[in-house]
């Protein structure tokens, strides 16, 4: 058995990482178990990356309250942890009188929740803000924004690691039992133990909840397909464009990422299989058509990637989607924080959720302050974002900044090295990708992936066949072509 921890967090999505980071403010021995080989690999990294304004939820719900709070603090959190966040606003565009009335209702409901900065703008103002958008008017939410969901999750995790949290990857929890005052947690590789356990397992929240003895939650899965487009287009869309929402579906959005890519999605379809991330042709066709109705200034030639994400939703017996469930059931599972159905707006709300559940924990146990807690995480300095003077200076200080590895995203050897030697000990190819943006551009690694896999071999002492793309078993190479080959310059 591994050492005994004070707290074990199950699940390294944005919520688990936010809880890890916020808990590291206290003098506790904390571990986070993640079944994948990196944080944020499921729902947290597969979404629209929008920081929601908090107007779309039921009055009095946790979704409303924590989304608003998460939105309010996002600027400060992003600054402390250096991840990309932009409070750029967003619009819901409409065309008919019915749309107009519906948007007024959205504003009324938003204001009832406490959302601020919601206004109707006319066509002229809309087209001034977003040239080329199709719509006669729009609701503007000034406080909405965009963020980089990978970077945010990684930043929270790295700051947690810096403050003493231990991360264990490739550890899928298969069983939990209580032994006296502690929980024993089994994975196929190891056995862990802790006094406290946190279920932030996202898609597996129902399974972990059952293991804790908190049965009866019905979790349904909603799958979203997306298309990512060239950065050339993102420059022309200054903020996310949504359509008028129905009661069940927010509608397709044309969004811009913090890296300036255009993003089309999501589709929102119920699915049985919470592990299948395949994108379907009919959904690609639907997204193309639906996006063309909003912002018809792209072609299929601008596509660079498709992806899919799945949201876990807690539903009642009639299938009605419920609020976030955050509970500690003292008589069934004492010292177990159970989070169920943390879906959208979980990304926006993540740090607020973390603070809320830690409050619940502290009502039951006093946690001593960690006087050494450092809230600051310095991200990697990106060559692409420096001015020419800064670039020249960076190369003088570290010549690795003068070696471009990924040309289209302008990622240098210095940045790749920092990503390979990340504080979490992640050694996958996508680990480098999400930390640096290398391989994320229009050539999708056509130029740089060979260089990056070679650097992973060299820096981590891995054999070619040990290079892993993303998940366990996603082997990229089958070894050498020739044992005796000349290992010269490439």
């Amino acid at each position, binding site marked *: 058995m591994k050492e005994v921890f004070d707290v074990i967090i199950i699940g390294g999505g944005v919520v688990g990482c936010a809880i890890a980071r916020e808990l590291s403010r206290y003098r506790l021995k904390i571990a986070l178990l993640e079944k994948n080989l990196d944080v944020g690999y499921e729902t947290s990294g597969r979404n629209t990356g929008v920081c929601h304004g908090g107007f779309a939820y039921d009055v009095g719900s946790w979704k409303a309250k924590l989304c608003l709070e998460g939105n309010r603090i996002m600027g400060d959190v992003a600054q402390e942890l250096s991840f990309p966040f932009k409070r750029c606003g967003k619009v819901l565009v409409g065309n008919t009188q019915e749309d107009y009335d519906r948007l007024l209702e959205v504003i009324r409901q938003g204001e009832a929740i406490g959302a601020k900065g919601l206004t109707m703008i006319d066509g002229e103002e809309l087209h001034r803000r977003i040239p080329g958008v199709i719509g006669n008017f729009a609701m503007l939410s000034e406080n909405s924004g965009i963020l980089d969901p990978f970077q945010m999750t990684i930043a929270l995790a790295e700051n947690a690691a810096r403050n003493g949290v231990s991360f264990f990857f490739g550890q899928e929890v298969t069983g939990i039992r209580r032994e006296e005052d502690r929980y024993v947690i089994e994975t196929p590789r190891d056995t862990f133990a802790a006094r406290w356990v946190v279920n932030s397992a996202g898609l597996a929240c129902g399974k972990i909840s059952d293991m804790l003895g908190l049965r009866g939650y019905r979790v349904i899965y909603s799958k979203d397909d997306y298309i990512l487009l060239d950065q050339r287009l993102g420059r022309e869309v200054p903020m996310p464009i949504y359509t008028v929402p129905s009661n069940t579906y927010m509608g397709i959005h044309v969004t811009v990422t913090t890296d300036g890519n255009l993003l089309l999605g999501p589709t929102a379809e119920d699915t049985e299989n919470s592990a299948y991330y395949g994108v379907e042709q009919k959904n690609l066709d639907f997204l193309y058509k639906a996006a063309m109705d909003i912002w018809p200034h792209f072609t299929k030639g601008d596509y660079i990637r498709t992806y899919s994400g799945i949201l876990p939703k807690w539903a009642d017996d009639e299938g009605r989607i419920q609020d976030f469930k955050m509970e500690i059931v003292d008589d069934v599972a004492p010292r177990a924080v159970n989070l169920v159905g943390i879906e959208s707006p979980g990304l926006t709300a993540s740090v607020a959720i973390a603070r809320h559940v830690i409050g619940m924990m502290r009502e039951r146990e006093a946690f001593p302050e960690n006087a050494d807690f450092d809230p600051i995480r310095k991200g990697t300095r990106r060559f692409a974002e420096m001015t020419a003077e800064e670039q020249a200076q960076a190369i003088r200080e570290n010549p690795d900044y003068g070696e471009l590895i990924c040309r289209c995203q302008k990622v240098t050897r210095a940045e790749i090295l920092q990503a390979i030697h990340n504080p979490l000990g992640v050694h996958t190819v996508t680990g480098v990708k999400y930390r640096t943006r290398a391989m994320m551009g229009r050539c999708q690694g056509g130029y740089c992936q060979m260089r990056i896999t070679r650097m992973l071999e060299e820096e981590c002492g891995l054999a070619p066949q040990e290079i892993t793309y993303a998940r366990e078993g996603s082997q*990229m190479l089958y070894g050498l072509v020739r044992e005796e080959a000349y290992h010269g310059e490439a």
Partner: protein
Amino acid sequence: MEKLDVLIVGGGPAGLAAAVRLYEAGVHDILIVEREKTLGGILRQCIHDGFGLTRFGESLSGPEYAARFICRVKELGIPYSTDAAVTEITEDRKVTVVTREGLKVYAPRAVVLTMGCRERTRGALAIPGERPAGVYTAGVAQAYINIYNRMPAKNVIILGSGDIGMIMARRLTLEGAKVQAVYEVLPYPSGLPRNVLQCLDDYGIPLYLSHTVTCIHGDRRLEGVTISKVDEHLRPIPGTEEYHSCDTLILSVGLIPENELSLNAGVQLDPKTKGALVDEHYETTVPGVFAAGNVLHVHDLVDFVSQEAEALAKAVARYLSEGFDGGTIDVRCGTGVRYTVPQRITGGEAFTLSLRVTAPMKDVTVVACQGGAVIGKKRMKKALPAEMIRMQVTPQQGAGEVEVRVDA
């Protein structure tokens, strides 16, 4: 800021040929900027033969072909910088070059764009399905095997009958991988006939036309692909799906000129070639900025890349000594012509026209007309989209727009 006559972006076949010819024409104040450790560009990984038949009258490997030019560059003492990346080109021709030694800005009188091309990816095609490891473009697989000594595949299906795809079918077979088949969405091969013969037929690798991959399976390493037949509009036909298990999918589905820096410089692109819009001097829409080779339009033979770059060098030398105006007369694509290079001309000067046809044709004549007069003509027993056609054209001064078409 450093002044010089010509800065060449990219030390592949086009950049090398341009540099040598410029130097021989008396332009010595040149710098070739190359991002790799050595000169040669993509030829470094093309270790198969068949290069140079037109140009040198013998069959060379890619590195041998490149070496002919690299040796000449070294003999002449033409300055070049390797491990050097151009990060920016402004409209007034300020070129930023980054190396481990630092960041330098050059102010050349002329900029020559010879960055080559990149491969179309799975994401660009938006092939449905999952995203496992084991989906590689042909060029990436080629680099892994020929340059990095890494084996990326065991049991392979190839999508697209582009030349590199077919060459990789052979290469992978020779290195012990099992290549099941090549699938091509078009009703005809998209690469050269000689490659169908030498890379597929000779190795018993079947080529299925009018087929495509409609789903990718596997969430770790690739497990298999679904293949479907397509109709005459290239749309998959429901009910024809077949699952084939494999661990590697190689894509050879098209090359795209690498024009990020060109766009950065304000150069206007031709949506058909996806390369710069040029006149017969290979000058782009930005004065003093020239382009040739695969960055201008994708070639099927490197020999033509060299020839084009040499024609560019001649024009650049003239630009530096006497200057000239940009082209204003349009060259229009008529029936059967997919694209032409140049897309506009100054008029009055004879030039070499490059073009591709829209579909395979037999016993046709490619005709260039100006105001009803035939100013260039080429008879073809067989015209294939895979084979670039080149012909001499002699326009008349002041006779207006040129139309290029294919007559039966």
